[in-house]
């Protein structure tokens, strides 16, 4: 036999199945390109020149790992779909006299050609696009790009290694599939197993419970710190719920509909309901995958975009004043010394200080166990929604900072509620009680964000001694309260460079004086924030794009599979007396339902997750909920349009197969 027989046959097979293989190869190329690009960014020299290179590199590396894992799962899944549809062909080879090892060698050549083609093209495209990628990333994080072009050998090698590995894995799986099956079964291939799906009530109930409790957790989590831990649990529960309900729940609902004779025996519902039962059986897993991927895409893109856009807010939340000098444990003398340093440094740079906010205070974490009673907080209780931050200030300090002239007796307090609620007029700290003399409805200095994470209260008392007593009540371990902390924030009327310079000269002066305080400025942190938030934004877009690619491919293959299944049904219905138009309408409504169900489910998931996501964003200092809502809506809108376009394009392939 001609040596070239198998390679030729392999090429012919790929050509013959081009309807399936072209999208597969394109996806392989796309995935390879994206993996290379991500890894390229991790290694790129240009990134090394950034001030925040470490955090950005970590972020990008994380992206590389996700892309890699995703590639393995996704290409394996696609391959298994392809091979399922080609079983008949291999059965035919078998019957024509080829042994299984011959079929295996055909498969080997097929995989060889596909992998060479896609790896070469993928890496080449990756190299071509790498400059564009880095330009894009730098544009996002507002950084100048250097000229030049580099091809990190390491990135090329690892990309090669990963994808040769994936293709080998797929080949192994395919050969295994051929070896374990009998020719007759191969001939029947995908046609077997057309049994009516059973109603799996238990799975439906499990799915409902999982989804319900996932939603419940997402809706009832109040504390952002608790949200970190619980978000993951909720995600897993919702994922399980999605899989169960798509597989079992949908069939259960359809069967209930079918048992309703009045509803079922209407020409509009008759064909759709029975058809959907089978469709759901075959597509449930694929659809839940689409649903979860879509949810991930929407959440990822909308959060990263809103963080990127809302970065100014974040900076303002994090730095209520342009420049902040702070020390958590500082004596009165040192505080005065700090004031002097600030005054000297600012006058040296000839800038005016404005909007000064400075006070000495102490923060104590406590549990608000009922309305107005605070008890000591144990470290494990940090995730509780009753966790509260109490900021204590003396009346003298208060008068000074607010420019007032109030007085308090030792059992009285002024209260400002930044977030939370203390309904009663007596606050108690374990056994120590204070009566609220006045509730303050605003606090000039209090723009500093205590708000976000926990309940926070600003309590003004008469003296340090009172604070000391409260401290003793609320602290579990014995120990001295130590000194108060000192916060000094101010705005300046100077440009960006001066501000950055001021912060560094302040820090130097502070260090030289032997005080532990540190100086920070919004402008100095901007580049850090930009590289992290911009990096996240980039990652969100990148992975979002990858997931969308996956979604597109799954939809495409589902449509093709549906098409081949429906072809026969289509013919029968026509013979029994359905017009072409009626059949088309019925099938279209089924397919529309099937393909837009995941999207609808994804939007519902997002709606329930909305609250918990805003809590998580609070942790990242983003408190602008409307911004996130707008970003989410826009993302959903764009994604839906994209989804619809993909659907319309693949539907054309479908109709070509059917008619």
């Amino acid at each position: 036999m001609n040596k070239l027989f198998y390679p030729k046959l392999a090429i012919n097979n790929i050509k013959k199945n081009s309807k399936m293989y072209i999208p597969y190869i394109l996806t392989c190329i796309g995935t390879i390109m994206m993996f290379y690009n991500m890894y390229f960014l991790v290694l790129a020299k240009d990134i090394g020149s950034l001030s925040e290179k470490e955090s950005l590199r970590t972020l990008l590396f994380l992206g590389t790992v996700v892309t890699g894992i995703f590639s393995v799962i996704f290409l394996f899944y696609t391959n298994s779909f392809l091979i399922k549809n080609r079983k008949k062909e291999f059965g035919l080879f078998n019957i024509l006299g080829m042994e299984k090892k011959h079929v295996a060698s055909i498969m080997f050549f097929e995989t060889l050609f596909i992998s060479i083609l896609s790896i070469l093209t993928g890496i080449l495209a990756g190299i071509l696009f790498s400059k564009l990628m880095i330009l894009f990333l730098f544009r996002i994080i507002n950084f100048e790009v250097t000229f030049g072009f580099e091809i990190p050998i390491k990135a090329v090698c690892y990309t090669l290694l990963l994808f040769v590995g994936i293709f080998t894995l797929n080949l192994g799986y395919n050969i295994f599939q051929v070896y374990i099956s009998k020719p007759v079964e191969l001939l029947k291939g995908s046609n077997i197993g057309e049994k009516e799906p059973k109603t799996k009530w238990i799975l439906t109930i499990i799915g409902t419970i999982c989804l319900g409790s996932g939603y419940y957790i997402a809706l009832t989590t109040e504390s952002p710190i608790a949200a970190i831990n619980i978000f993951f649990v909720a995600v897993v529960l919702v994922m399980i719920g999605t899989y169960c309900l798509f597989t079992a729940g949908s069939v259960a609902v359809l069967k209930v509909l079918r048992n309703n004779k009045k509803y079922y025996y209407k020409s509009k519902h008759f064909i759709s309901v029975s058809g959907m039962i089978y469709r759901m059986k075959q597509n449930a897993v694929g659809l839940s995958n689409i649903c979860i991927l879509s949810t991930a895409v929407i959440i990822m893109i909308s959060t990263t975009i809103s963080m990127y856009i809302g970065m100014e807010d974040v900076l303002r939340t994090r730095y209520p004043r342009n420049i902040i000098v702070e020390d958590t444990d500082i004596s009165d003398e040192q505080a005065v010394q700090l004031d002097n340093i600030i005054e000297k440094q600012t006058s040296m740079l000839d800038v005016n200080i404005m909007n000064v906010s400075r006070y000495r205070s102490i923060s104590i974490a406590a549990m608000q166990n009922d309305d107005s009673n605070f008890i000591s907080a144990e470290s494990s209780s940090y995730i509780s929604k009753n966790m509260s931050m109490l900021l204590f200030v003396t009346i003298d300090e208060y008068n000074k900072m607010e420019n007032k002239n109030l007085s308090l007796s030792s059992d009285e307090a002024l209260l400002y509620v930044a977030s939370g609620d203390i309904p009663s007029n007596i606050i108690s700290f374990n056994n120590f009680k204070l009566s609220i003399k006045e509730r303050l409805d605003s606090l000039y200095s209090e723009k500093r964000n205590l708000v976000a994470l926990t309940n926070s209260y600003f309590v003004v008392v008469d003296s340090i001694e009172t604070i000391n007593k409260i401290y003793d009540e609320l602290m579990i371990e014995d120990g001295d309260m130590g000194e108060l902390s000192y916060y000094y924030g101010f705005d300046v009327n100077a440009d960006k460079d001066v501000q950055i310079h001021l912060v560094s000269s302040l820090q130097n002066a502070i260090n030289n004086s032997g005080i532990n305080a540190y100086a920070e400025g919004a402008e100095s942190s901007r580049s850090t924030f930009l590289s992290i938030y911009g990096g996240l934004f980039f990652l969100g877009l990148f992975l979002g794009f990858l997931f969308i690619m996956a979604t597109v491919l799954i939809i495409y293959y589902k449509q093709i599979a549906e098409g081949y299944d429906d072809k026969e049904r289509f013919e029968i219905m026509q013979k029994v007396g359905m017009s072409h138009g009626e059949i088309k309408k019925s099938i279209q409504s089924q397919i529309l339902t099937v393909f837009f169900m995941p999207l609808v489910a994804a939007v519902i998931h997002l709606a329930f997750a909305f609250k918990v996501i805003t809590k998580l964003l609070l942790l990242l200092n983003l408190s602008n909920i409307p911004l996130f809502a707008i970003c989410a809506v826009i993302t959903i809108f764009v994604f839906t349009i994209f989804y619809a376009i993909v659907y319309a394009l693949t539907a054309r392939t479908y109709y070509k197969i059917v008619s």
Partner: protein
Amino acid sequence: MPLLEVNNLRKIYTTRFGGNPVQALSNVSFSIEKGEYIAIMGESGSGKTTLLNILAALDKPTGGEILLNGNNISLINEKEISAFRRDNLGFVFQDFNLLDTFSIQDNIFLPLVLAGKSFDEMNDKLKHIAKKLEISDILLKFPYEISGGQKQRTAIARALITNPQLILADEPTGALDSRATEGLLKIFSEINDEGQTILMVTHSTKAASHAKRVLFIRDGEVFHQIYKGTNSNEEMYQKISDTLTMIATGGGRNE
């Protein structure tokens, strides 16, 4: 007036890339009276299936006309053709053509549901027909759970449930074993005795021998026909097989 009249029917298939046109039917004329039971026989490629497809309005003739109750079915427009098919014709196919997503009962209901009938009305009709065809026990099963004979009886039930003017059967015994074939032919004879007009296309001499009239098609033309008259099934069988032998050996007209 005959129930069905076929006059000078012609069908020419032209291949897409300008290949030679294939003449499937060259000149077919015959007519069917109400209550007749007709078998059309012919070798592979003689044009049987083309004829049936045109009668079923699934395909358009190149020339000639088909009158059902005096109406030319070639003139019915595309929108009404499906409803026409549903109301006037019943189909029985060699490979049954049951939808595997429907239970037996739902398969039989299909044409009625499409016609917008209520469940109670459908159910009454079904009970009667299911009893006659002995499929009452399997109504809730699915096509993959029953035998070929049962599938074919289901297909007959689906064809009968609309009370069609004419039943068109395409090789109805083709996929059945001898016992199931026997049963099916018995059912056809019975429903014909009740007044149902049947047109059956078949290869099987045995199946054809049950018909009251047999038409032979060769090279796209009606070549010959035999009336059963008072003959028994066995005598009819003999006559048909003689005719087939004669056609196969290329003899002249048997007149």
